């Protein structure tokens, strides 16, 4: 017994300096890091204050209330050089960024899925053309593509007096795309109400149909009913209202004058170029995401679906796509974010987005570099975090199917 005890005491570790304690070391490294960071920020801040004082620039966000004094070519809200403040200019730029991103995301999703599926087509020709599209678009910088669309393609459009007529009230010329402008009558509320009613009806019908299917196995025509309720009902209402002489929507067509088009809705060439560039570029990346997602669904799934007697269309819709979506959603989200961030390249072609208006004109006019940079970056950070938050919720809903 005694001998064992001495053995234990002999093998017990020799007493070491507390400097070898991982916790002490960890604390030491972190303190060094904090001191370094604080010192860095302190030096930067004192220098910045000194430099700003020397340049006689008042810091703070008061400049947002000053009159801007410049015009913006595309404004979704009322904005004029005389009355608009820098704060208004910020909102105009932000809305322009948001609208080009939203429309871009809508179209690029469509195009990206189309090309991604085309890449996997059994048709050799279709698959190869899709592959060439992806490789070419992915390997050329977006900036070059934007300049190409803006200067080489849209710059070559004719003068307004020789506008290209595309039918249905669409005209294309060097000042942009002209189209019919919808005019809302006072009874538009009826149409909106019917649309809302249709949406609510669809929601209730879908729940009922799913419950019925789970209980009885009978399938109800969900797609057709949705289409009828959401699209058919409002259109029917519209036609009925129009027949009774109370048309809620009328269109103002652009009229061709001697030198210019008047009336209608004008879309800036910068907007068209930016949208074209963003949509075609991002679609190439989304196509790859979609392709990878579909390939990630194992072949056994398709074969099992086939052996259950599902048609190829049903297999794609009910078996492959729901499983592929789980793989597709996370990278798809980051592509959406990329599109939103890339919309800042608008500054290269003069589309008045947030960066062009705020980090360009406002920054140059006021010299408030720090405030402007902080606000702009804050906006993009918020958009990024918000989008990934929303997508994570959706992702969780899709992923929960897995058991």
């Amino acid at each position, binding site marked *: 017994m005694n001998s064992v005890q001495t053995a234990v005491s002999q093998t017990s570790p020799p007493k070491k300096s507390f400097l070898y304690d991982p916790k002490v070391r960890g604390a030491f490294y972190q303190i060094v890091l*904090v001191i370094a960071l604080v010192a860095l920020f302190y030096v930067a801040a004192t220098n910045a204050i000194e430099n700003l004082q020397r340049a006689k620039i008042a810091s703070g966000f008061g400049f947002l209330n000053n009159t801007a004094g410049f015009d913006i070519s595309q404004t979704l809200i009322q904005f004029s050089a005389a009355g608009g403040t820098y704060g208004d200019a910020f909102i105009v730029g932000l809305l322009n960024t948001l609208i080009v991103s939203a429309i871009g995301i809508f179209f690029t999703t469509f195009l990206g899925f189309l090309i991604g599926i085309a890449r996997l087509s059994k048709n050799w020709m279709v698959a190869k*053309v899709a592959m060439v599209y992806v490789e070419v678009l992915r*390997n050329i910088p977006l900036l070059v593509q934007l300049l190409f669309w803006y200067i080489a393609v849209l710059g070559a459009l004719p003068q307004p007096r020789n506008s290209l007529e595309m039918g249905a009230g669409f005209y294309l010329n060097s000042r942009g795309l002209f189209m019919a402008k919808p005019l809302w009558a006072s009874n538009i509320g009826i149409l909106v109400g019917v649309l809302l009613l249709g949406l609510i009806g669809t929601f209730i019908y879908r729940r009922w149909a799913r419950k019925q299917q789970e209980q009885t196995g009978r399938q109800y025509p969900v797609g057709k009913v949705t289409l009828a309720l959401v699209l058919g009902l409002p259109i029917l209402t519209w036609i009925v209202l129009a027949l009774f002489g109370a048309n809620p929507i009328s269109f103002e067509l652009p009229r061709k004058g001697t030198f210019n088009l008047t009336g209608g809705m004008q879309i800036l060439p910068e907007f068209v170029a930016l949208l074209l560039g963003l949509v075609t570029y991002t679609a190439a990346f989304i196509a790859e995401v979609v392709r990878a997602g579909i390939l990630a669904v194992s072949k056994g799934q398709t074969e099992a679906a086939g052996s259950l007697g599902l048609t190829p269309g049903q297999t794609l819709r009910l078996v492959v796509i729901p499983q592929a979506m789980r793989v597709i959603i996370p990278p798809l989200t980051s592509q959406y974010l990329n599109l939103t961030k890339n919309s800042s390249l608008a500054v290269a072609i003069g589309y008045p987005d947030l*960066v062009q208006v705020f980090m360009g004109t406002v920054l140059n006019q006021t010299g408030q570099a720090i405030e402007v*940079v902080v606000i702009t970056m804050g906006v993009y950070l918020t958009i990024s975090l918000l989008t990934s938050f929303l997508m994570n919720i959706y992702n969780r809903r899709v992923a929960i199917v897995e058991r």
Partner: protein
Amino acid sequence: MSTAVDMPRFVRAKQVEALPPPNLARGPIAWIRENLFSGPFNTILTLVVFYLLYVSVPPLVKFLFIDAVWTGTDRAACRADAGGSESGACWAFIWDKINYFIYGSYTISERWRVNIFFALLAVGVVWLLWLKAPRRDLGAVYFFWVFPVVSYILLTGGNENFGGRFWIGFAIFAALVIALFAFFAALLKASMRPALILGGGIVAVIGITLVLVDFDFGLAHVPTSLWGGVLVTLLVATVGIVVSLPFGIVLALGRRSKLPIVRMASVIFIEFVRGVPLITVLIMANTMLPLFLPGDMTVDRLLRPLIGTALFASAYMAEVVRGGLQAMPKGQYEGAMSLGLNYPQMMSLIILPQALRIVIPGIVNTFIGLFKDTSLVAIVGIFDLVKTIEASRIDPNWAAPTIGITGYAFAALFYFVFCFGMSRYSLGVERRLAAGQKR
């Protein structure tokens, strides 16, 4: 029962040659039927694609090659009203401006230095990317130390003339560093030799670099405002990769660290940079960097976007490296620890060599993104390839309707060749690594 021998012999001794398959089931016709016209839907699809190709490809070929103008010295060659052809690309313009597109306004008599820079860059890239190249560890030393220092001296001319006071300051700094290492070695009761070697090594690397930069090699000074074109494009990309790889590794290790403050600082930096567009980072570097420095200090106009892109690329690189670190099985960490290796030893000898190897494709893909993003420096007024094309496009000597489209076609071709080549390389490595993992 009769045996087979008794039966009449109608069985052939030899196998009959198989008949060739019907004509419609082999050869190009069958292939076309199978792949292009296998049903009404496919047939329509094929016809639509053919129509699209018919609409787009012949005019493109006609524009780029058949109708293109290959020779000429000014706009007359590419203008219909001056007797030239204006229905095709104006390659004569590119040919005339090619030196400007490659070197910018770099002093003409000194352009051999840029050529050497290109050659050194090529050597470094091949050494690191060719998986079978000898002594790739030396390659890393070359690419991350020798090559940047030599390039700096070559491109700017070196001869910084630090002056005596600077060297006295450096001597004090060197003594402090070595003393600090010696102090910690004494404090930890560790052996003095490795500590002194480490401290001395750090001082030596910095010292040699500074001496080389200070030394007068007799090269004429070329201010960065003259640099331009492909030189700047490759320079931004090179600085991006040389800085972002080590910095990205540090950030990735920080993000995986058990120390909360280190981890939080890394996460904030990475997520912040990844959440904002590069353009805003570049504008920030352009406008705010001078504010943060003491009043009498200025930052070179080319250096500002270089810092911006390097920081930006580091955040993306960190995420790639983190993927590799997370892919390492836990046994590798535990094995290293059970051998008694400390953290730096474990990381540098066991984990990073394996983790970096499996993320080579990811690193190359990040680099492709970085390479494309270098074009954005044009927006903050740096004369990279895109900006030189922009500047030449409005040259009155070459005012012709097809100049813009030709310039962008050239830029597109340049970027495409580099990016496509790199993406093929990354695919090849991926396939090789996958083959190594196969059981």
